[in-house]
């Protein structure tokens, strides 16, 4: 087994193992995929360009294993993403859209995809 292949298999533990949280996806075609597992970072640290200060920003980032997805989100597509409101397995699910200004990223060679989310509310 090659190193890349081994790393991809490790994602079953590092991304979808005990630290993972439930993630549901709805593709632009309206196909719902429930029961995915992934890592969710709820806050990120960014620098305020005006002051140089580090600020904690509420911006959930979801990392999923590509091989667990039947369809990979492409930049510019409208996807609905459901994640728990808090890092708790039993928390109620909250809806987000994939951010149109921050396309999904991730190394295809490593086998994960990182998705940046945008809040959504009832129209």
């Amino acid at each position: 087994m090659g190193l890349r292949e081994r790393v991809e298999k490790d994602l079953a533990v590092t991304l979808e193992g005990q630290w993972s949280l439930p993630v549901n996806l709805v593709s632009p075609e309206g196909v719902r995929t429930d029961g995915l597992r992934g890592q969710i970072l709820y806050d990120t640290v960014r620098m305020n360009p005006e002051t140089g200060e580090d600020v904690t920003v509420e911006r959930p980032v979801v990392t999923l294993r590509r091989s667990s997805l039947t369809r990979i989100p492409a930049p510019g597509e409208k996807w609905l993403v459901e994640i728990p409101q808090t890092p708790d397995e039993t928390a109620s699910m909250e809806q987000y859209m994939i951010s149109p200004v921050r396309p999904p990223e991730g190394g295809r060679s490593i086998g994960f995809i990182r998705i940046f989310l945008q809040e959504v509310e009832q129209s």
Partner: protein
Amino acid sequence: MMNFRVLQQALIDTLGAAAKARFRVTGYRGQGYDAKEVKDNNRLVQAYYASGDFPKSKGRFTGDTQHVMTFNVDFSVSASAKADLSVLTDSGATPARVQAALTASTDAAYEADVLLDEVIEYAYQILMDGRNVDLGLPVGTMSSRWVDRAVKGAPQPHGSLVVLTGQLQYSCQVVEEVTGDEGVLAGSGSVTTQLDIDGDDIEQTFVDN
């Protein structure tokens, strides 16, 4: 108090009185706002004195001066995307319905743009309304009021929200009276001095001036 300060307050009062919960007015240039705060407060409007010119008449060194001033009226709005979540979260909805709901969803930048356009329109109409030509001040206090310019910023993603800022520049003219500096009134503080008087054994004689 110089007239530009009176006018700034009148500008804030005029916008605030006409806001009717459509936006919130603050009278100073605030520090950075959190996107959540702006979103929870609907639209945020900040009105403040930005610049002024004091044209000098030839040969004049004293007396009242013209003050041509500009006020900035800054807007901050914050929005999230919108979609029909009742369909998107319905596990019984057909893929076609879900697809239609996703297609009809709007981007947060678009929602923020709509909010900003609305608040610019509100503020412009309030400021250019004939009834507000004097901002509620006595007739003759100010003249030549005009909204010169509207500027819209670029949408910025702030966390999971999008923030958009804009600005109206409002100019007018007043006469400033030069009253001179009034200085600072002397305080009533005291100076306590201990005197070393011969024969005052315990040296507790104080003079309070």
